[in-house]
């Protein structure tokens, strides 16, 4: 059964259609790649699904429940989490508190319980120095912290918007392995937006391709990456 499903999802910004009639679904435990040219609407799509933006038309269902216009915090509480393309640390909170936010408000945990589960998640991601200020973190650590915070929501569906961007390949591999493991353990559906094709190849079983807001291709990476439309619009000679 699909965890998350959209039908005819559309978003326009005063004339410019950023997401156009996108119907897609995500299943339990799958890792889905979302690729497409710059400005194709990937980030906007995640904004729509996570409730940061409201769609112009179309519908979104989560486990059979219509959530098209549900506010963001409600979606987080029922099990949709995400990270952001641009980092969003809460800089007046310690690292551990940053992670606790997810547990406290999405899962209504007490501060004590939240701290415990946050510590566990951080350990899993190999993030330490939890009493530091976020300004002292490197990019890798901030990204880990944001993944940890999203995981602390204990989501059933998780979107990662270019989390590996800016990491070197060593670091990327490490993050990929962790995400894969956690997704498997928790039977979580994960949507990954990336421009580094190596990541997509390693991580995902199925890929959807957006272009100019439209879903133009779908399937395993190997197939999709040979689709002439994808090659022309997105990969160029680089594939």
């Amino acid at each position, binding site marked *: 059964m699909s965890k998350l499903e959209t039908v005819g999802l559309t978003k326009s910004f005063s004339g410019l259609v950023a997401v156009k009639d996108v119907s897609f679904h995500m299943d339990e435990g799958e890792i889905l790649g979302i690729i497409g040219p710059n400005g194709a609407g990937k980030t906007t799509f995640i904004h729509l699904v*996570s*409730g940061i933006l409201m769609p112009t038309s179309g519908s979104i269902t989560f486990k059979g429940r219509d959530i098209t216009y549900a506010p963001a*915090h409600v979606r987080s509480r029922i099990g949709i*989490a995400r990270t*952001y393309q641009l980092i969003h*640390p809460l800089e007046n*909170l310690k690292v551990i508190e940053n992670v606790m936010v*997810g547990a406290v408000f999405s899962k209504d945990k007490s501060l004590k319980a939240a701290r415990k589960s946050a510590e566990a998640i951080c350990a899993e991601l190999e993030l330490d120095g939890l009493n530091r200020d976020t300004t002292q973190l490197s990019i890798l650590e901030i990204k880990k912290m944001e993944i940890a915070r999203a995981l602390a929501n204990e989501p059933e569906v998780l979107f990662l918007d270019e989390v590996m961007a800016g990491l070197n390949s060593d670091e990327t591999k490490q993050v990929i392995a962790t995400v894969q493991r956690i997704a498997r353990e928790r039977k979580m559906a994960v949507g990954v937006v990336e421009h580094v094709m190596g990541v997509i190849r390693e991580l995902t079983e199925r890929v959807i391709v957006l272009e100019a807001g439209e879903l133009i291709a779908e399937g395993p990476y190997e197939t999709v990456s040979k689709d002439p439309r994808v090659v022309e619009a997105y990969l160029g000679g680089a594939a």
Partner: protein
Amino acid sequence: MKLKGSYIAVVAAAAIVIAFPAFLGAYPLNVARSVMTYMALAISWDMLLRSGQISFGIAGLFGLGSYASALAVLRGGMNPFASVLFAAAFAALVAFALGFAILRLRAMYFSITTLALMEIFRIVMQNLHDFSGGPEGVVLPKIIFDGYSPALYWLCLGGLFLTIGVSWYFEKSKMHLALTAIRNDETSARSNGVNIFKYLLIAFVATSALQGMMGAIQVQSYGFTTPDTAFDANFLMLPMAMALLGGIHSTIGPMAGAVLLGIASEWLKLKIPYGHLVVYGVIIILVILFMPQGLFGLARKAMRNRRKAGANNE
């Protein structure tokens, strides 16, 4: 161990403050009341500030509380003590109703709207001649405790303790996480399940109730109110300056700032009868320029450095 130590310190400090009337005269008690009133306003203002919302409505809610209490006694024959609670509840109710409209606003737009509301409250009180006494205000038949200084002091102190308590709760509970998250990054907060509106509303209603309560205590202690005294812009700017001076986003900072500015203003006035406000203004300027984190920030920094130095020595 450490926790216990700070508890003892807090209890001791509270005991000393409660015992003040035993060894202080009417004048220091009067100054203390004024300082405590500003302190409570500064703390309550800071509590909402922790969510990033800069309210310019302190004086408005303070004034509203003053009028609610005075009119409840005068027109409704309410007991003065009950009227203080009534004023707090009334301010909370008004804040609750207004909150639905204005808590969607941010930054300067929120500030201006709260400022405009304060002016509206003032103009309404000024124009409802028969009900609120118009520009000349209302005089109560008698003041609470018949003006007995220590009792007035304790009443005000009670209000302050309550404010400190609520603020402390805000610091230690998940309100702290919620408000800080909202201040730092609303998008991120929303995506992590924080119901922004709910927490803003809680903070706005709670702080408004405290401000209204302090207004009621003030009016019952002086026995009169007018639109100009109840909605005095000083109740707006000074608490802000005090909080900033002491260090924002904390309970102790606004307290330190209120003591410093409150006592400085009284002292300057006695030393420089003509022109003390010039020096007052200059002090504010200098403190902001040279202590941008406030007293508390400075202390925090010093402590951190000392701790670091200690760590290095090991």
